[in-house]
């Protein structure tokens, strides 16, 4: 390499260096530390005792973790597909230049800026059987209130609805961005090709926003597999663990029971699961795309 090129290389590293350092310190180092801690019987205050893979063995045989895993999986399946579909439909409907569309875009995005505490507070008011909004509505129809937050059959759907309401904004924005990058003239060409609205949607719009769809699904899956705030604040993981999610369990084990080693092992398992799921999604979609010329 010539002197100038080498200098350029140095400058490049100097620009990227600070960020890489922070990234390594905040993400990579704790990841590796966590791996190490998970191989120990560790408590929150510094005691460590090497146990090898015993924490992982315990995790795989823990029925409470199994229940948390099932809950989390159910929640993710209940949230991600409807969220994607609804966000896409809303983005299609709001992808206009009218004033009303602009106002509605702001409205749908606004729930995202609320913190999880406010969101769960709002939904508690809506869902509680004691004079909550839904209960009052059911009462007006002459029906008994439904205990959304305390009946094992209803808690997971209740969490799903709360999360859906909260999370709509970001996927809508992503879809809007993707839709607006589709060149307008191919819709005109499709119109001249006699394509009806459903055909246009299925064969023009969807394939054009394929990558955006993938992004939304990947991000949301990773996010919903880690649901924590809604479960802790709305139902406390109850009743009887019916709405306990994996991250809530990790929180309880680490900060409630002080079993840091076990909690870290569960966290590593969760990390592996999220990694596997998102890579699988990526591979499934990208393998159909050919190289560009």
């Amino acid at each position, binding site marked *: 390499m010539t002197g100038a090129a080498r200098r350029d290389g140095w400058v490049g590293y100097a620009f990227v260096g600070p960020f890489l350092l922070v990234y390594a310190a905040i993400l990579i180092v704790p990841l590796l530390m966590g791996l190490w801690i998970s191989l120990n*019987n560790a*408590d*929150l*205050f*510094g*005691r460590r*005792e090497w146990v090898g893979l015993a924490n992982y063995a315990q995790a795989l045989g823990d029925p*409470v973790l199994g229940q948390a895993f099932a809950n989390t999986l159910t929640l993710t399946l209940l949230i991600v597909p409807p969220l994607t579909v609804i966000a896409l439909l809303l983005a299609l409907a709001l992808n206009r230049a009218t004033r009303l569309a602009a106002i509605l875009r702001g409205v749908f995005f606004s729930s995202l800026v609320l913190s999880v505490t406010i969101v769960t507070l709002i939904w508690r008011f809506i869902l*509680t*059987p*004691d004079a909550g909004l839904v209960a009052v509505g059911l009462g007006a129809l002459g029906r008994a209130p439904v*205990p959304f*937050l*305390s*009946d*094992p059959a209803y808690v997971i759907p209740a969490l799903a609805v709360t999360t859906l309401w909260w999370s709509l904004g970001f996927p809508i924005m992503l879809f809007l961005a993707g839709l607006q990058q589709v060149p307008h003239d191919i819709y005109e060409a499709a119109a001249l090709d006699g394509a009806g609205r459903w055909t246009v949607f299925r064969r023009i719009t969807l394939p054009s926003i394929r990558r955006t769809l993938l992004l939304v699904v990947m991000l949301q899956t990773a996010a919903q597999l880690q649901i924590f705030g809604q479960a802790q604040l709305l*139902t*406390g*993981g*109850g*009743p*009887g*663990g019916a709405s306990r999610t994996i991250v809530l369990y990790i*929180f*309880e084990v680490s*900060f*409630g*029971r*002080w*079993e840091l080693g*076990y909690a870290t092992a569960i966290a590593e398992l969760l990390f592996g699961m999220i990694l596997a799921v998102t890579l699988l999604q990526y591979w499934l979609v990208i393998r159909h795309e050919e190289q560009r010329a």
Partner: protein
Amino acid sequence: MRKRALAFGFAGVLLAGCQPADERPEIVVQRFFGECGAVYGASTDVAGAETECGILTTLINRFAAENPDIRVKVNVVAWPGYPQLAAQIAAGDPPDLVTMHQSVIADYSSRGLIEPVEPLLAEANIDPAAFTPAARAGVEKEGRLYAMPWDTIGRLFHVNTALMAEAGLMREGRPVLPNSPEELLAQARQFKQRTGKPYLIQAQVSAPDFMVAFLYTYLLAQGQPIFPDARHVRLDTPEARRVVALMRQLNAEGLTTRNQDFPAATAAFTQGRGGIFPVGTWMLGPYDAEAARRSSALHGHYAVAPFPRLWGSPAPFVDGHAWVVPAASRSRAERAAMARFLGFLARYNYDWSRTGQLPAFAAVLATPEFQALPHREDIAALARTGRQLPGYVERQSAVQGLIGEELEAAITGTKPVDAALRDAERRVNRLYAQMM
């Protein structure tokens, strides 16, 4: 030239913004009991404050006002605040004084995470002999005192006497309370039949402490050692099954409210939607204030009694609040400030007892003001006879959560009683086995 002048000017403005360093010692006080700044703000009127939150807020405000040479920083945490505290200690940045339940002290003391308070008590001129027996027992672990006790919490039946009268369960102005599980069910059914409302109001959602207290009370009453040693719990016993079966029966027959969390249950009692709210001494003050209002459903119809004897002997289960000092190195000035704070709190123990909790200082029990507080003669004995869990029992907060979860499943009928108790025992024992 202009640029330089601007730069100097800007620097000057920045420097002018610097304040002289604050040399006062700072104490960080961390507490639960709720956030009521909207009502009490900066008020220092302790005598006029109501409820745990109000009295404590005004107390701390008053201390800060009377001691301008100490900087007081208050952290309000959501009940019970133990995850936060654990994180703060693990991070090496704990507060100076923290409210803690006496049942939980053993966890922290056994690991050296909190320090013995005898030096601070001595500096504050507080004699441990002044504590009530129950309070003293709650803070003494392995011969050392690890906290300044603040109160004793007893479990009480809060009674709506108007509804009880309607149900035919009043005699000579006192509510008729059952002496056995069968009597309880019979009276509960009678109540429901005559008034159409549930006999009991209970918080069963997100309130594990509620149900666990009920269980502990009646296990202790039957003389069953719940925690035979530091590493085991025994719940899969006929005594426990009896208690849980009773709770399950009450739910199944609709003799109690269901699906309510703690705020909902508290409000339900105020609105007269049930006969008895079995909760604790801390609601005594607020409900008394409520009953004083003419328009309230409880006006003139409010009574309290300790949990009735249903099995074995009457053995009231108590806990208590206390102020602990997380272990950390502190300057002389800070320690002196902390001692002054503890001394201040000790002087206002009577005001704290206006909440309904029993005072930790025996002298307060004897004062005419305390005895003039409504209903106190019904419950004062708790301070003497109340029993806690054995001092070696650790991880109470986590254990309570586990047992509470299984109890909830058993009581609502999701799980059979035996299975729930077995699972609770298994899970707690596993927790203890993991403990280092």
